[in-house]
């Protein structure tokens, strides 16, 4: 049994807005073993990005605990530089996440500079080493991001996250903005790095095929809640939550032979995360919904080894 790198206990983030309380992250319990990848999937507005930012304390959580290596980082106010250095993030947009006025070297060295790690020579050495790891030519050190293409920019993003030798990296849709051929390069890079350094990833994405490719376990989110949590093979082979099932069948598969297969489309669109009604949040769109779905006592139930769902009508 591997040791748990990161665990969230009843993590909650509510946003107070004029229209009501947005339940962005609602009682999320997750744990990620060391060296593995947890994929978090969901559609836009399901709170997956907020979850990632809460874990890194970029957004203060409303309540709950975040245990990193067994210690609750929220207790120390999350200001401790220890955690900052060991937990990093890779952002989605390789265009807006890089300051256009900084050179590639400065961008990658920024974490070292802000944390005053080492002398100038040491920094240079580190940056050069990491540029080599992510496949950026040394001559690019003086370039500005606008001179580079999306793939190289995202390599900078990866390098910036890795330069501090983190234990845990939140990847917030790191390949969504890239073309498929570039996307594959970056995914390979991230998996290589994981194997070499034993980094733990939390991989946030809306793309099910990507998440299947890179993750060990997968959490499916809907309107702020985790509705299904299972090992990858289990989830794709036997989805038990109706939403997961619908999500899987909605993904277009590049295989003409599968085209004739009947698809199970769900009706309607994601409802608002503002002051949601008690009970199952998927119920309004769910083909199996019954009145008991609206009972407020719905929690996660174990339906198999490491397989949990939040549903009163699990599929077979």
């Amino acid at each position, binding site marked *: 049994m591997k040791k748990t790198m990161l665990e969230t206990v009843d993590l909650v983030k509510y946003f107070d807005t004029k229209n009501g309380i947005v339940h962005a992250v609602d009682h999320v319990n997750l744990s990620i073993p060391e060296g593995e990848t947890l994929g978090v999937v969901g559609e836009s507005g399901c709170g997956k990005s907020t979850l990632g930012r809460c874990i890194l304390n970029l957004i203060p959580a409303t309540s709950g605990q975040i245990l990193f290596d067994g210690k609750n980082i929220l207790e120390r106010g999350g200001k401790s530089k220890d955690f900052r250095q060991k937990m990093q*993030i890779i952002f989605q947009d390789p265009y807006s996440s890089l*300051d256009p*006025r900084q050179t590639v070297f400065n961008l990658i060295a920024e974490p070292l500079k802000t944390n005053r790690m080492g002398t100038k020579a040491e920094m240079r050495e580190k940056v050069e080493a990491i540029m080599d790891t992510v496949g950026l030519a040394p001559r690019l050190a003086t370039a500005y991001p606008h001179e580079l293409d999306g793939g190289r920019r995202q390599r900078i993003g990866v390098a910036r996250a890795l330069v501090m030798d983190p234990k845990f990296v939140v990847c917030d849709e790191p390949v969504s903005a890239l073309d498929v051929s570039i996307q594959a390069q970056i995914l390979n890079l991230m998996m290589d790095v994981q194997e070499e350094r034993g980094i733990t990833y939390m991989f946030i994405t809306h793309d099910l095929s990507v998440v299947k490719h890179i993750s060990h376990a997968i959490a499916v989110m809907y309107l702020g809640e985790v509705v299904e949590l299972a090992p990858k093979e289990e989830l794709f082979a036997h989805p038990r939550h109706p939403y997961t099932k619908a999500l899987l069948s909605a993904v277009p598969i590049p295989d003409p032979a599968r085209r004739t297969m009947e698809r199970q489309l769900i009706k309607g669109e994601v409802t608002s995360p503002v002051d949601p009604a008690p009970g199952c949040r998927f119920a309004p769109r769910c083909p199996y919904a019954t009145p008991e779905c609206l009972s407020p006592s719905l929690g996660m139930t174990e339906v198999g080894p490491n397989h949990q769902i939040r549903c009163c009508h699990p599929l077979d």
Partner: protein
Amino acid sequence: MQTKAKTKKQKNHGAAYDIWRSLRSNKVAVVSMVIIGIFVLISILADVLFDYETQVIAQDIMNDLQSPSKEHWFGTDSLGRDYFARMLYATRITLIISFSSVFIATALSIVIGGISAYFGGIVDTIIMRILDVFLAVPSTLLIICIVVALGNETVYIILALVVYLLPSLVRTVRSELMINMENEYVEAARSVGAGPFRIMLIHLLPNSFGAIMVRCTMSFALCILSTACIGYLGIGVRAPAPEWGRMLSEAQEYMRLHPYLITIPGFFIMIASTAFNLLGDALQDAMDPRLRGYRKMKKKVFARRKK
């Protein structure tokens, strides 16, 4: 074609170089920069060409209201002072007042706007509401009130102009910073532990600098106009110092017979403020990536349309 593309890839200049290149290729920008350059030169050389005590403020009633001649290029005013010398010194005074006001106002607005944008919430609301009050008074009247209340020392005129410029500059700084704060790189910097000062100085200000410079350049024009306005009302720079607005109002009496006496200073005011505004415009175009290089493209478009 290939060599071109190669040179394009070789240069690693920052954004400043691109802006300069774009400005240089813009005729209007070049003309306005030349005009501004001449005005600056005039105000530096004023001392060399004319002596302030004897030629600019000393009265010579015997030679009043002479028409332009070789000796007096712009003629003389009603007190027999050389109009050309006075115009040159007036340029210097206007530019000094404008520069100091713009400089002080910009520095202050970066501090206030920065506080407002970074802290947001109640601090932001209070600052914005106070600025709303200042903006509610028509700007000319605001300057008049301040100068009337404090007196027309040069320092007070500068103060009045600073108060006048501040609200809109603060708003520009604030909105620019807020727009840039939406960018993910700010969050990226926070995620590696950068504090507010580092984010402000290293990331936000350099990225907002361009837009602030545009407003600064345009503020020069506003200052030149406003200095002339209060001068015209007789509450500007103290007599006998020459000042465009005041010279114009003094010349009003004689405009029937000596129309050039009001034409010349008005023309100077107009040229100076237009030049600064056009430069600001060009700067804005140069910084807009959508428009970068639009001048050359325009030529091509024309060439094709003719075909």
